[in-house]
């Protein structure tokens, strides 16, 4: 006997301008089920969840609750029915305590709420101190607060958007325990992810999306990663060949007891970071964002000056006091994690965005811009790095995140740097483009460049790095040779279990 469907979507479509984000989607979620929505970046998962949660309204199709069609014009409508959502990027106020954050959404006296928070925490393994200030909490704890806040509204369906993407491996285990307990309590859970192994472990149903359409409706436990990948990206998961590995040469980037106080209360202080990066080598910095990653990147790039010139050495020269432009002149280049507004100016054309950092490549004469050279550089870049764009006079902001990332990466690689820093190279990039980016980095390494990669994606780091460090709470782990280290070892550093 099949369980009855609680939430049913039939023929739901949503279009944004020229982009068909969702096309004729059917989905039914049953009580007591953990239902995966699987798809890569841009497949339409987030749009679908926004429709269910009432953030957006479908152009076509119906959403039914217990068989009755409903119209959800705002999130409070969805909450009233019993739909709760935990967003990928948390919506908590850092300056408030846990119970204060909860009381913003949940009616009731603070004292009662605090009691309920502790009670729910004990019941579902979501331990968190109700009086703690949110900015003191770890990412995993913040996620628990979000989940508790949803649970206090007594939802029947809980939506989790990429909940594991920000968690260290050990916290993922705890989250799964919680979700299984909720499931056995009869709740329906919509679990959005692009990670195949997780879904095979946790979920009993999966709806697979590709390009806004449903390409599969399966029981993930009965399929292997290979066939799920086929449905998700239309082919096998791409694999990287390690490439010909050159012997590492001279040290090109060195951090020597790099310490830096945090700039704001919510920043992270860095303490005594030591690192040495050689030519022909890729070193990865693992760890969850917010543990000093942004501060470290800015200190290496020169956007923040170090307190002492000797703390950062580029090409054997003390560079801690130099600005970004002077560091670039030493042979350094940098791909930042924010593509819009930092790595590029969205309102400017691609060709003007080349000028941002590549102006030293003969694009200026007496301070005046040589358009011919600027344009041919840009054309070469979009061709060599497969940037999908109608032309070089298109504004950078009109490109998709993945294409813009390829452009920025291409621009920085074309500067032929001796040392390169890449932060979150494949955030929000589809699998095909991500593989292309990783291949490029490996090729650069084989040609003798020294590359430092800061990433939250452990799989990615293991794929391309020779050595890993873990950055946690402003402290850097000792170097871990990637070949002799397991994800679990790295995870131990990520949660501070290993020192």
């Amino acid at each position, binding site marked *: 006997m099949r369980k009855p469907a609680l939430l049913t979507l039939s023929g739901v479509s949503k279009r944004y301008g020229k982009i068909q984000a969702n096309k004729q989607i059917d989905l039914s979620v049953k009580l007591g089920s953990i239902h995966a929505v699987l798809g890569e970046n841009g497949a339409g998962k987030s749009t679908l969840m926004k429709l269910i949660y009432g953030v957006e309204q479908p152009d076509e199709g119906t959403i039914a609750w217990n068989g009755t069609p409903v119209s959800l014009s705002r999130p409070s409508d969805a909450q009233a029915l019993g739909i709760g959502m935990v967003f990928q990027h948390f919506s908590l106020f850092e300056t408030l305590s846990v119970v204060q954050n909860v009381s913003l959404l949940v009616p009731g006296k603070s004292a009662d709420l605090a009691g309920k928070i502790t009670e729910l925490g004990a019941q579902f393994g979501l331990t968190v101190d109700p009086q703690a200030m949110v900015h003191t909490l770890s990412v995993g704890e913040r996620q628990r607060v979000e989940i508790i806040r949803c649970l206090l509204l007594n939802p029947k369906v809980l939506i989790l958007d990429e909940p594991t993407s920000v968690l260290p491996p050990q916290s993922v285990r705890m989250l799964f325990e919680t979700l299984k307990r909720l499931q056995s309590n009869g709740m329906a859970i919509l679990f959005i992810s692009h990670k195949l192994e997780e879904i095979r472990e946790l979920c009993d149903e999966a709806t697979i999306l590709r390009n806004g359409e449903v390409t599969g409706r399966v029981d993930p436990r009965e399929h292997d990663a290979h066939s799920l990948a086929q449905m998700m990206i239309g082919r096998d998961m791409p694999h990287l060949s390690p490439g010909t590995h050159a012997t590492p040469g001279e040290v090109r980037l060195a951090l020597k007891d790099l310490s830096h106080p945090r700039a704001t209360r919510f920043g992270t202080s860095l303490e005594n970071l030591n690192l040495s990066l050689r030519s022909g080598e890729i070193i990865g910095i693992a760890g969850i964002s917010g543990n000093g990653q942004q501060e470290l990147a800015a200190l290496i790039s020169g956007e923040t000056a170090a307190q002492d010139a000797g703390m950062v050495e580029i090409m054997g020269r003390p560079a801690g006091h130099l600005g970004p432009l002077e560091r670039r002149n030493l042979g350094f280049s940098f791909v930042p994690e924010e593509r819009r*507004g930092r790595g590029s100016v969205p309102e400017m054309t691609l060709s003007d965005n080349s*000028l941002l950092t590549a102006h030293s490549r003969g694009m200026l004469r007496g*301070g005046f811009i040589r358009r011919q050279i600027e344009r041919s550089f840009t054309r070469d870049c979009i061709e060599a790095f497969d940037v999908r764009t109608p032309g070089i006079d298109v504004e950078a902001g009109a490109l998709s995140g993945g294409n813009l990332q390829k452009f920025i990466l291409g621009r920085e690689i074309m500067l032929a740097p001796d040392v390169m820093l890449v932060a979150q190279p494949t955030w929000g990039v589809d699998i095909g483009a991500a593989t292309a980016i990783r291949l490029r980095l490996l090729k650069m390494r084989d040609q003798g460049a020294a590359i430092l990669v800061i990433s939250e994606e452990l799989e990615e780091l293991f794929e391309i790095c020779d050595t890993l460090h873990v950055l946690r709470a402003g402290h850097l782990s000792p170097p871990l040779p990637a070949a002799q280290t397991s994800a679990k070892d790295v995870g131990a550093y990520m949660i501070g279990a290993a020192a």
Partner: protein
Amino acid sequence: MKVRLVRRDIASRYAMLAAPVLALILTCLTSLILFAALGIPAGEALYALLLRPFLSWYSFSEVLLKTAPLLLIAQGLAIGFRANVFNIGAEGQFIIGAICASAFPVYFPNGDFPMMLPAMIIFGAIGGMVYALIAAGLRTRFGASEILVTLMLTLIAIQILNYLLLGPWKDPRGFNFPQTVMFPFNALLPILIEGTRTNISLIFALVASVLAYLMMQHHFGGYQLRTAGLAPRAALYAGFSTPRLIWLSLAIGGLAAGIAGASEVAGPLGQLQRSVATGYGYAAIIVAYLGGLNPIGIIVSSFLISALYIGGDSATVSAGLPVAAVDVFQGMLLGFYLLTFTLIRYRVEIDRWMEA
């Protein structure tokens, strides 16, 4: 009805041209209602305001006369505005420019100073620039908002002007009026069009426009300023020095306003008097934005606002329009322009299901 603004992928060039025109139409329509409510013959008022400046050679030359300072100041300000450096104290820099230029004819009233006019213009330019750079220093050193500092410096400039005109610089034979001696002939700008008051400061303004165009569209300095304005973090990422761009922006704005101030006393006024502070520095802010902060657009908008000044004068006489109504008209024009400006980046979408 459900109307939404949807962000455009690419700024619309069509809307860029249409926005000021639409703003002018909306302003005229609103003024018609407003004037009618005031019991003023609205048709006559608009005719005087918009058309009469172009109907006689004399009034047209007066439009050109007023265009010169507006255009010059606005070109200077727009460069800073593109970099998000909001110098709104051009009025003060204009006054200081006028004062610095006046020092020469005041101390050499017989005109026996060599190179009188070039010295006045250069001194006026330096005065305006240094005055604006006070704000740059306070901003880069202490993080003081240049908006407040430049605005307050304007009040100080007015008091300096008052002090000089009531004290040391007062014309001894001027019947105690707060004004300096009339300047000697060699302290006056040559007239550009015979029989009018239009002088060569219009040439200064047009040259400044060409320079502004070259700098903002084709020079790396202008590129850095635009980057700093559009995406400050991208400017930091690329290593463009923000303090340097702040100094540069304020220097250019102050320099242009200073030249305009010098040209005003060496031009139509022929002496330093209180009425030198007529609000060109503030009007130029409107001019700069109405021209889309674009050097070519500013040529058009400075001409338009100048025509409104002349038209406003004639409307107060012929249609009995209150003086304040001209300010209201200008204010509405800027307000409507900022509204219609949205259309460049956004398009209006009316939900489909409403039509069904």
